[in-house]
């Protein structure tokens, strides 16, 4: 076993454990923290795959920004204690059904589509996954999706502002 494999197995264990912890924790704050840990583990995977740029972006965006907002919402609403029983009666059967579908799909892929699981050799150059490479790809190959995403985010922002802004005449 190479050192990379041992690392991978340990990290995978952590990733799965934190994901389960996030699901089963009764306290929403703990769930959020498990999720943060999960994101961090995924970031380490990216580092193992020689993509430090993606790894650090993952931490900055998900752990640093999005999860902080999650925590905000949880704390502000005082929703950290989850109710003991599920809120929706049809939720559990639906979840089980969807999980089965997912397992079936993954099994099909693993068993009959050998090609996807073939090892891809990583290009061991310094340039791979570097900021300049990611930037070039983003602004040439994926220009349209990139711009569409930015417009989407902008419209979401405008929507939020429209919703929260008070009408004139109301007390400021």
């Amino acid at each position: 076993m190479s050192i990379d494999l041992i690392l991978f197995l340990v990290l995978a264990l952590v990733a799965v454990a934190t994901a389960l912890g996030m699901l089963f924790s009764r306290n929403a704050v703990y769930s959020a923290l498990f999720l943060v840990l999960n994101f961090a583990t995924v970031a380490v995977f990216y580092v193992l795959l020689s993509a430090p740029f993606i790894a650090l972006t993952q931490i900055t965006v998900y752990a640093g920004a999005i999860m902080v907002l999650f925590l905000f919402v949880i704390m502000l609403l005082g929703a950290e204690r989850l109710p003991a029983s599920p809120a929706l009666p049809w939720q559990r059967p639906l979840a089980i059904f969807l999980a089965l579908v997912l397992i079936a799909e993954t099994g099909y892929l693993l068993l009959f589509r050998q090609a996807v699981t073939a090892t891809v050799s990583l290009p061991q150059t310094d340039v791979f996954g570097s900021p300049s490479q990611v930037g070039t790809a983003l602004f040439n190959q994926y220009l349209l999706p990139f711009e569409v995403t930015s417009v989407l985010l902008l419209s979401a922002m405008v929507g939020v502002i429209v919703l929260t802004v008070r009408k004139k005449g109301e007390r400021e």
Partner: protein
Amino acid sequence: MDAALIWEWVIKALFLIFFLLGGFAYLTWYERKALARIQVRYGPNRAGPYGLLQPIADAVKLIFKEELTPSMADKVIFILAPIVTVVPVMLMAATVPWGPPIQLFGRTINMSVADLNVGVLYITSIASIAVYGIVLAGWSSNNKYAILGGLRASAQMVSYELALGLAFVLPILLAGSMRLMDIVTKQAEMGWFVLIQPVGALIFLIATLAEIGRAPFDMPDAEQELSSSYHSEYSGMKFALFFMAEYEKMIVICAIAATLFFGGFLGPGVDKWPWLGPIYLLAKIIVLLFLMIWVRATFPRIRYDRLMALGWKVLLPTALGLVFVTALGILLAEAVNPAMLWIIPLLSLVAGVLAVGVIERALRRKEYARR
């Protein structure tokens, strides 16, 4: 991976950690002394000559203080929070280069713990993690002041990260690399970036003040309003960890500011004598630290909503404008004439004056509606 490399890392990391710990202790002394001189007082002068043993006395006091945990607190997170606050700060210091590479025992040794090719991004991502400690400390204390303070502090940090991130972009653009070492070496040929992008450096300094919660942005521990907010329930060593995080953050942020805008370890004679590098960097850090202390002694605190307004409505657009100006200048310098680079400071000064004008107009005395 040979054993020597691992030893090199361990030794460098230990050096850095001890530097930060010692620096933290003596930064408190330095701050108290500098504040005292500004305020026509003596400052600590009882423990040892010039009060030099004061930090040690403080440390002993804090270690032996009783540790209290509120009965309704979330114990695990309550203990975890100070640790989560301190560790990222130490991690952040890893990428700062302390000098040019040196030859020792037949090896080339980099003078930074980790010379990442995404060093700047690394700093922002670790800085964004540091928020957790504060949010969790506020929440787990189960205290209204603490939770309000924690939420405030983290909202402030998240908001100023944007302006800070854009200020990071300026040296990246100028150097064409995210590696801190490259940024420093580029400054050797182009001159300190503070000369090319003075407004950017200013925004960086303002945003860092807010990011680490120093006066006049010290909302997180606005003693007069929230009786020291998120760490109000902490005592003893756990409190000391928050304290430590704040002061180490000051040191690290000053080191980063010195590296990005003030030429890092550069100085006369560094090429010939590499050991001058750490000394120059330290000197720059001390000067920047004094700037922070000076600001604290001079300015009252900004109110929270105005602080947010400053971050979102002034600093962020200005920083965006500066990024545009810088990119424009670089393109012109490449396409037309290298001297066109000096369009950057000119245009950015215009942007800075515009921003100041906006603040001035907002502050100008208006006829306010009488309630």
